[in-house]
């Protein structure tokens, strides 16, 4: 098993939480893992990304080679497009929220962004904020996106659920429930749309 995952978003959108959940699940399945994060300057409302590599064998590089990523998971549509150069031309999936985070003056028309995404061979675009709200809180939008990516991750859904229990335990039972529901809702949507 080998999965190379790019996580994308804007500073503060919770992509590191996604990484932690996938990482925790991967470890529980006995996989090797490397995760390159972005800290520092770029966190101030700038674009952030993380390279997450999972494998049943030894992993050499902390960075995923260009053109080899199996999946881009993004909490923001324009940010998802920033990394299409990383995506594998035949097998690569792009899974993204359709909710723009507009903190720049030259943010493109959302329609143009979506059109560019829909040109790719494999994609899932979801209104993660709406789905998260339906589950109880817009805060769980990042987990909805993760849910939508689960069909392509090669990790057992139960392992991811357990990881959510572990990661959110500190924040109380309500948060655990909310995020479990968000994960399931994201998954259901992805399965329906593909």
């Amino acid at each position, binding site marked *: 098993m080998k999965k190379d995952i790019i996580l994308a978003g804007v500073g503060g959108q919770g992509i590191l939480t996604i990484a932690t959940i996938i*990482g925790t699940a991967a470890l529980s399945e006995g996989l090797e893992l490397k995760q390159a994060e972005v800290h520092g300057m770029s966190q101030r409302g700038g674009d952030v990304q993380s390279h997450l590599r999972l494998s049943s064998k030894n992993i050499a590089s902390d960075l995923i080679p260009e053109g080899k990523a199996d999946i881009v998971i993004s909490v923001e549509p324009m940010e998802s497009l920033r990394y299409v*150069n990383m995506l594998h031309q035949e097998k*690569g999936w792009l899974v993204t929220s359709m909710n723009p985070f507009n903190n720049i003056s030259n943010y493109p028309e959302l329609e143009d962004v979506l059109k560019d995404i829909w040109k790719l061979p494999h994609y899932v675009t979801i209104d993660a904020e709406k789905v998260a709200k339906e589950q109880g809180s817009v805060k769980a939008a990042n987990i909805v996106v993760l849910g939508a990516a689960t069909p392509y991750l090669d990790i057992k859904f139960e392992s991811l659920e357990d990881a959510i229990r572990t990661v959110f335990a500190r924040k109380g039972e309500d948060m655990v429930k909310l995020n479990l529901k968000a994960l399931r809702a994201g998954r259901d949507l992805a399965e329906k749309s593909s």
Partner: protein
Amino acid sequence: MQKLLLLGDEAIAQGAIDAGISGVYAYPGTPSTEITEYIQASKEAKEFGIKSMWSSNEKTAMETAIGMSYAGKKSLVCMKHVGLNVAADAFVNSAITGANGGLVVLAADDPSMHSSQNEQDSRFYGKFSFVPILEPSNQQEAYDMTRYAFELSERFSIPVLLRITTRLAHSRAGVTRLKSTTQNELKLPSNPQQFILLPAIARKQYKNLLSKQEGLEEDAFTSGNNVYTDGSDKSLGVIACGLAHNYLVENFEDGEVPYPVLKVNQYPVPKKMVQKLYDSVDKVLVLEDGYPIIEELLRGYLNIDKKVKGRLDGSIPRDGELNPNIVAKALGMKIAEGFASADSVAGRPPQLCEGCGHWDSFGALNEALQPYSGGRVLADIGCYTLSALPPLQAINSCVDMGASITMAIGAAEAGLIPAVAAIGDSTFTHSGMTGLLDAVNRKSPITVLLNDNSTTGMTGGQDSAAFGKVEDICRGVGVEEAHIRIIKPLRRLHEENVKVISEELEYDGLSVIITRRECVQTLARRMKLKHLDKKKANAKV
């Protein structure tokens, strides 16, 4: 023992705790900050009484560590690469004194300048100072080599430089811990003159340092940190330093590189290993995530046999961070390509946070400077440097920490009056205070905008050494009381603030305007902690 999932920075921190340090000394700086933060948060470190308070700057950190080494205990010093410039005087001379207790200096380099103003390679400092260097290539090695560094330091009575780059610092992987070593007892140097660098003694000490070099090179041969792996294809040999080795291996199925490879993690690099590689192959490719240091040594100034490839002959780009594809190209391999970049992607540069006081401080400064021609704001390094970008576009320079006040003095002496210096509280106590003393002594007519947000914002909100002391320091170095003004950077006080700044710009003498409002991120964190503490206290009742 179970594996811990650690950042490279955290692996180093855990390695240092397990190596028995008695103190970590540091000034924050991306990508090194998380090392000290990990030790500050570690229960074990607290239990063992490991000192971990932030220092005012890298030089004071380095010197405090030398003091601890003098007294026989082990210490770690951490900084970002440019911090080593600040600490250089102490660092270079610590090689001459040598260590008593183990002394390890960590420098975190930032190739591609993810959050720095240059991409200098700290290995130069190691060579320049005749100090051995360890350069781990993964998180486990980061842990192991930190421990080895302390051992090496005590065995050779020499400081050891531990060099990492952003990619390792901020990447996570599984790390296995080993059995801990205890802290040292207090024990002064057996030679009471070891740390007295009077010329007569320094000359002896320097000879002593030079005489250690052969042993250090031999250690780099026997330690197992540098590994020679033979390969059947002798058309090429590869020297891969630190992290670069991963990018090499990544390009081959199951990591089987067909060429002879020298993996370098410890310097000085043993000549006999390099010779063996050089003699057995047609060409040598040198992979270094940083400057072409080994490459330059190997090829020589005249590049006579044209055998060496790397950054200097264009096989690898001259600047920037390495990655698997750059290495693949240098090896002449075909690389995969992703999709072409989409037209609809716009840049999203970092910005000041919403609600940050710097918006108001620099908004007011901009307005107060309206009557004058542009180009008058000499600034410094911190979150406020982002006010260089639109819409504020409020500053005209950012060179090195502390340079704002001193550059403003120079510009004013050249005739640029009024000149403004813009600096943050942490930067002020890092290296701005001495410049302010210069301004007082030279009666410089500059206006200093001292942005006191009670924290070291840029690096994630560490305690600021300036906290609660800013006015006292200004008074203490001799700034006139009437020209130390305090304003609160808030939108609703804009007019008032513009007026204060305008008055001081007009004043023909030195003034300091302190703009004081807590960083909103630090405030939010403080409130969250307070809330948690309250919850805990309630739970106990």
